[in-house]
């Protein structure tokens, strides 16, 4: 006993801090490849942060699995004929984690904070002119919120529901410190924030009074009933260690298994691989202001020299569908026209390159090893273009450096990936725009920009699809980028995890999941 006490005293004197009690048996344990940045929705964020926040906070609307928008805290959404007034009657019986009922005043309070410049909300600019402008937020009664817009927009509700905007999650004012700074989220979601030990884990606790919607879970909408008492997101940066943790029963969900591990994991009894097409985009960007690549014939030559289906098959082991369109194949706006992938034509590629005055000079493609796919895309492209006599040189950079080069447009070619864009207009917008003010944009075509703006205003689905198809045809003519594929999210669970579903966004959802053996 004295020996044990001495050990404890010694340990305390050495300052063995940061204790982490072992996870309880009724805890769902999920791998997180890096710690979250904060709990402030849509402010200091990344994909992991968004994936944590959506368990705690809910917005007026939420994204379904097919990226369409559904009411969440709102009972329904009423849009005026001119598209300038949105009325959100709130659902009855919704309570915050502190027991307070949700009212329209809470919504107005949260929206005011989002719109304040000092908040640095990621989507403030979108709702302050870029997508539309909110001119007024009114609360005619405790259960109704009215938002008035400067101009109609097809993207307004999508913007409110975007995960990178923190779903414009409605939080209670108890979430803030006395000075107005963010403290911790007090929301209406199926889980409340428990303990966050930075660099180690974040634990969520089931919210017993959660007001679940009827029906089935659907994306971030629908029925989000929590079935486990706690969820622990364990930070495991190393992929091999995460895989070992799954096999050693130290975690219950590996949400982002590596493609190279899938064959082995599928072969193991008791494990299930859940695969879903993502809404991200793997792409090769070309700098159209570069002396060589400003000639569209050269860009077309490069596109024709690439064997896109073979490249995608090699990278994803058949898990993803090749597509030259930026709108993901899982989107309801992806049409058969967009699924057409032109065949590789080496002879035409050589001829076009020659016509463009190409004489074998090296073209540099920027890539990084931070993301496996970017590097492999560059390597495979180099090999394929060599067969057409095009000399591609790899410039491998650290990720932050590549990101800066991308932001400044300082590259000839770049293997890149865009995070999930859930509206088709945004799928084009991510690389379309004026280079003079936004050097990161790869496609600077004023006519297309006009069409893009039309698509953002247009609310009729058929007319939007027509616009997107026209833009896609022009994209294949101009070839400022070569879209390749949307990756596939592969999550792995053991047999005792039931009810888990992967979906278009690569962060997992813990609601609806049960632990059968516990």
């Amino acid at each position, binding site marked *: 006993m004295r020996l044990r006490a001495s050990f*404890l005293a010694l340990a305390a004197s*050495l300052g*063995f*801090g940061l*204790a982490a009690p072992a996870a309880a048996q009724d805890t769902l344990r999920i791998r997180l490849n890096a710690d979250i940045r904060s709990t402030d929705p849509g402010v200091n964020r990344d994909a992991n942060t968004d994936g944590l926040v959506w368990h705690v906070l809910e917005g007026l609307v939420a994204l379904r699995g097919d990226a369409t928008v559904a009411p969440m805290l709102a009972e329904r959404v009423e849009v005026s004929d001119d598209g300038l007034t949105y009325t959100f009657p709130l659902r009855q019986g919704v309570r915050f984690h502190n027991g307070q009922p949700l009212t329209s005043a809470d919504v107005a309070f949260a929206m005011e904070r989002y719109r304040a*410049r000092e908040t640095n909300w990621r989507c403030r600019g979108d709702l302050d002119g870029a997508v539309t402008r909110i001119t007024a937020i009114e609360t005619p009664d405790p259960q109704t919120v009215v938002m008035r817009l400067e101009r109609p927009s097809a993207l307004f509700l999508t913007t409110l529901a975007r995960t990178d905007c923190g779903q414009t999650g409605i939080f209670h004012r108890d979430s803030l410190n006395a000075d107005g700074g963010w403290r911790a989220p007090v929301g209406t979601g199926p889980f409340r924030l428990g303990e966050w030990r930075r660099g180690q884990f974040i634990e969520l606790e089931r919210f017993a009074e959660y007001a679940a919607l009827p029906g089935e879970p659907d994306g971030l909408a629908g029925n989000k009933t929590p079935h486990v008492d706690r969820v622990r997101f364990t930070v495991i940066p190393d992929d091999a260690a995460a895989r070992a943790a799954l096999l050693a029963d130290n975690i219950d969900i590996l949400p982002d298994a590596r493609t190279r591990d899938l064959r082995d994991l599928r072969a193991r009894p008791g494990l299930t691989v859940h695969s879903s097409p993502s809404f991200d985009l793997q792409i090769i960007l070309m700098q159209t202001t570069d002396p060589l690549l400003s000639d569209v014939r050269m860009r077309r030559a490069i596109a024709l020299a690439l064997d896109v289906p073979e490249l995608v098959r090699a990278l994803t082991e058949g898990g993803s569908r090749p597509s030259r369109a930026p709108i993901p194949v899982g989107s309801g706006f992806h049409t058969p026209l967009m699924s057409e992938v032109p065949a590789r034509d080496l002879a035409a590629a050589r001829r076009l390159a020659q016509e463009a005055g190409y004489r074998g000079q090296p073209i540099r493609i920027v890539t990084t090893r931070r993301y496996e796919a970017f590097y492999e895309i560059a390597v495979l492209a180099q090999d394929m273009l060599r067969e057409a006599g095009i000399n591609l040189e790899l410039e491998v950079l650290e990720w932050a450096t590549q990101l800066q080069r991308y932001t400044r447009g300082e590259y000839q070619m770049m293997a890149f990936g865009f995070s999930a864009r859930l509206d088709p207009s945004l799928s084009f917008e991510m690389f379309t725009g004026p280079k003079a*003010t936004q050097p990161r944009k790869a496609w600077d075509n004023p006519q297309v920009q006009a069409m893009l703006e039309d698509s953002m205003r247009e609310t009729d689905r058929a007319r939007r699809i027509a616009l997107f198809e026209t833009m896609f045809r022009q994209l294949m003519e101009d070839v400022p980028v070569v879209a390749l594929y949307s990756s596939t999210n592969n999550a792995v669970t053991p047999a005792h995890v039931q009810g888990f579903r992967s979906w278009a966004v690569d962060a997992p959802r813990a609601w609806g999941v049960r632990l059968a053996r516990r």
Partner: protein
Amino acid sequence: MLAYVLKRLLVALPTLLLVAASVFFLMRLIPGDPATVILGDAATPEAVADLRLAYGLDRPVLVQFALWIERALAGDLGRSITSGEAVGPLILARFQVTAAIVFASVGIAVLLAVPLGMLAAWKQNSWGDVAAVAAATFLLSIPSFWLGLIFLLVFGLWLGWVPVVGYVTFAEDFWGALHYIALPVVTLALIETGVLIRMARASTVEVLRLDYIAHARAKGVPEWRVLARHAFPNAFAPTLTLIGLIMGSLLGGIAVIETVFTLPGLGRLLVEAIFARDYPVIQGVMLFIAVIYVVVNLIVDLLYPVFDPRVTAG
């Protein structure tokens, strides 16, 4: 002695200032900035400008440096751009994890390597010596991440003796903590054992050739006493220097080990901060590492006279 310590610490101040300035300006020369990394592929010029303004990165670099130094001298290392945490407490919290692993592993390595190295030197060119040198070379050659992953596979996955991920403190659960840190400690201890065996052996071989050892043997002093009383103090002094360097290096972060074993230590903090261009954290950690080197070297210098009376502190 106290005057010597104070003098050494004063002399270290310009070194620390130089480190602080070098890290500060070199980080600004590296492409990429925190605002771009935080905003990612959707970074509009306006959003980047807003974030740079919020973090004070829009000011001239010299002004930023002066402000940082002024606060650092007052004990405030700023706040992490990534997480908003105060850098000082963040470093101390992460250092506790690293220190626990490093003290334990270096301690084990010293206890293993010094006797082994001395015995190998004593029995130079015997099978035992060859085996010790071969083992040391083997351990030196193994990358720590590979050894760590193999240990995870064997002891965590196949045998199930230890958890694969996680960390528990001694204060909260002593035996649980032993389970969690066993593999990282053993991994690091084995790697460092290889280095120390070679040093202990080489310095003992040198010492055993000296006249005073022959004299002691001629006087009929027992062999164990020759080794323990006469050879060890002189032979250990160079090893002590190496231990100091190893401690300084490892306490500054064992990023690979911390990543493989999912430990929230100082090395992982630094690596993640570099990737995120989290300037205040990088600057704070690098300054802290420089302080560690100063302190560890000072301790080694103060211990030196204990083993080698020819050297006097001060």
